């Protein structure tokens, strides 16, 4: 089994509610099937131990503390990953907006040409780059548009001290924009390492396996264990959904660029 991100991208095509339900169904289903097939075998080990349920309960609560901590930390990491990528997107759009303002001060025809090159870049990000990012592909043609803008920006020869100041500021803003753009591209495929997924899944399986050791009525076992398995499935879903910053419903949208593009278009 592989945990390479691209092997699981198809899961992000499932609508969120259905995906959440799927995760819960898999975990509860696994617990129930195990209750039928594995539980009778496991219980052989503790059948004649006095106070077996107390021991299992103690082990389970100890295990749950560590596993819960791990899940919590991983969920926070995944959230920070999405949040950081979102911050980069906002900064890139802000730098682009500032750059647009700077080049609006350029004399014509330079100003108009530079403005439409920035508009072209923004349109590309919204229409082409975002759908690619949502498929886990790093968009390449935005680089061409950024280069085209840079080329035209360097073509401009300031003719006065005021123009020199504006030009220097535009170049500085362009470098900021490039930095945030690179960070956005780097975050397209940023996700939890495979080893974390292995540990999480092993932990979930052990958690469930410990529940199979309880000695109680079968139906009670199915209901109580099922509740725990359902919550485990929900946590796994949450981490999975946040794992890829640009995929799934809990992902970064191009809203910052869309707002900017609308403003550029209105002027």
């Amino acid at each position, binding site marked *: 089994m592989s945990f390479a991100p*691209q*092997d699981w*991208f*198809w*899961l992000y*095509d*499932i*609508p969120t509610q*259905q995906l959440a*339900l*799927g995760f819960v*169904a898999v975990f509860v*289903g696994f617990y*129930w099937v195990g209750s*039928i097939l594995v539980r009778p075998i496991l219980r052989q080990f503790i059948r004649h131990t006095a106070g077996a349920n107390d021991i299992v309960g103690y082990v389970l609560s100890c295990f749950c503390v560590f596993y819960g901590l791990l899940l919590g930390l991983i969920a926070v990491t995944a959230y920070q990953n999405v949040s950081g990528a979102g911050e980069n997107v906002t900064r890139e759009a802000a730098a682009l907006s500032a750059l647009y303002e700077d080049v609006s001060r350029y004399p*014509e*025809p330079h100003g*108009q*040409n530079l*403005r*439409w090159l920035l*508009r*072209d870049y923004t*349109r590309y990000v919204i*229409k082409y780059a975002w759908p690619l990012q949502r498929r886990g592909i790093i968009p*390449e*043609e935005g680089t*061409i*548009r950024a*280069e*085209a803008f840079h*080329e035209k920006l360097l073509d401009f020869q300031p003719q006065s001290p005021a123009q020199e100041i504006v030009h220097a500021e535009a170049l500085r803003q362009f470098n900021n924009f490039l930095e945030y753009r690179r960070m956005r591209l780097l975050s397209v495929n940023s996700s939890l390492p495979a080893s974390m997924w292995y540990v999480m899944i092993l932990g979930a399986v052990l958690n469930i396996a410990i529940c199979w050791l309880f000695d109680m009525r*079968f139906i009670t076992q199915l209901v109580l264990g099922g509740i725990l398995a359902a919550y485990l499935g929900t946590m796994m879903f949450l981490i999975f959904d946040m794992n890829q910053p640009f995929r799934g419903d809990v992902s970064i949208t191009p809203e910052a660029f869309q707002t900017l593009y609308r403003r*550029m*278009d209105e002027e």
Partner: protein
Amino acid sequence: MENGVRLVGEAVMPRRRALAGGAAATLAAARLLAPALFVGCTSGIGPRSRTVPVGLLHSQTGPLAISATGLRDIELHAFERINEAGGILGHPIEVRAPDPRSRPDLFVKRARQLLDAGAVALFGCWTSLARKAVLPVMEEARRLLFYSVQYEGNESSPYCVYGGMVPNQQIVPALDWLASKDGGGRRKVFLVGSDYVFPRTANFIARKHLAGKELKHVGTAYVPLGDRDFSAVVKRIRESGADCVLNTVNGDSNLGLFSALADAKVDPAKLPVVSTSIAEDELRGLLPRQVQGHYAVSCYFQSLDTAANREWVAGFRREFGFDRVTGDPMEPDWCLVHLWKQAVERAGTFETEAVRQAFRAGLEFAGPGGPVRLDPQTQHTSKFFRVGRIRADRQFDIVHASPAPLDPDPYPEVAFPGWSVDWTKEGVTRGPEVDIDGPV
């Protein structure tokens, strides 16, 4: 239980039956829920309908970017509209547009990359240098290149569809117009161009056409592509006594030419420059005072006052911005994309040979500039000939137009006697070799 002794099978069987029943119910529920649960789920390979890749080969940086970027955008616009309407044969078109950076060697490399990535056809190239470099790659891969820029003719490839004007649709009528009363009855023309195959061949055809005519050729000058220093050329034009200039300079070298003409205070009324490769997009980089009053010859101008054109321009601006302009060769490019779509739909496949066979039907498309017909013999298109005078707002007043589209002739008899092409029959018929740099 009986006396504390469990009878074999007494309690086990009901539990087994309950478990079996539960398992069966779970499976039945899973089967029932599965379609709802996994609706919208794909295999991970791609969307349900296979996308078909198409390559756009336009310089987005370098000296040709000023002209070629508009072509990329109009092609994106065309394919976006096509995809919104359901794609071609039900397949969405996936557009890939790498940057050949105005370098012929990179055009070849990018073309190979696009074809290797599965592009079924390429749309692109600006200069003839780039087109001639890419054509062997297309012929080797047996895929079609759609070329929308006006060019010199004297070429035919079964794997190229030419959507731009050829000299009998542009250069020759332009010279005739200059010599006419409407064109000012000019008598001395100076030919200026970028130093590569299109301007040299176009000027050869111009000189051949002018032989024995009242309008005389008084000089020729070539400047390397991308050069912007035209002061010496303008001096030569002045000294030649020319009363008009036929300009085949390409790309942003035009900025240098018109800047030098303005610096030399050339009056467009006395010495008009008639450009073959200047459209609304190139005028963006020029100041109105440098170009106002000069002319361009083309098959299309944005200012064309028809409902179809107004709608098309509005659609493009809505998508790409209020200050964007359309022009030649953007309009032919739009027509080429739609002619290809027609051919693919008629063929029922994206396969090149079947699409070429579909050309034989004589495809027609109602373009924004008027009806366009793809000539199956030459794989060139019919074109209106129009002359536009540059206005202060960097648009054109259309001062002359042919009454009907002109049929293409890639081998005008006056310049290439004995040469012809018919792709519905034997292909190219070769005549005697012609030296375009030799005496006329």
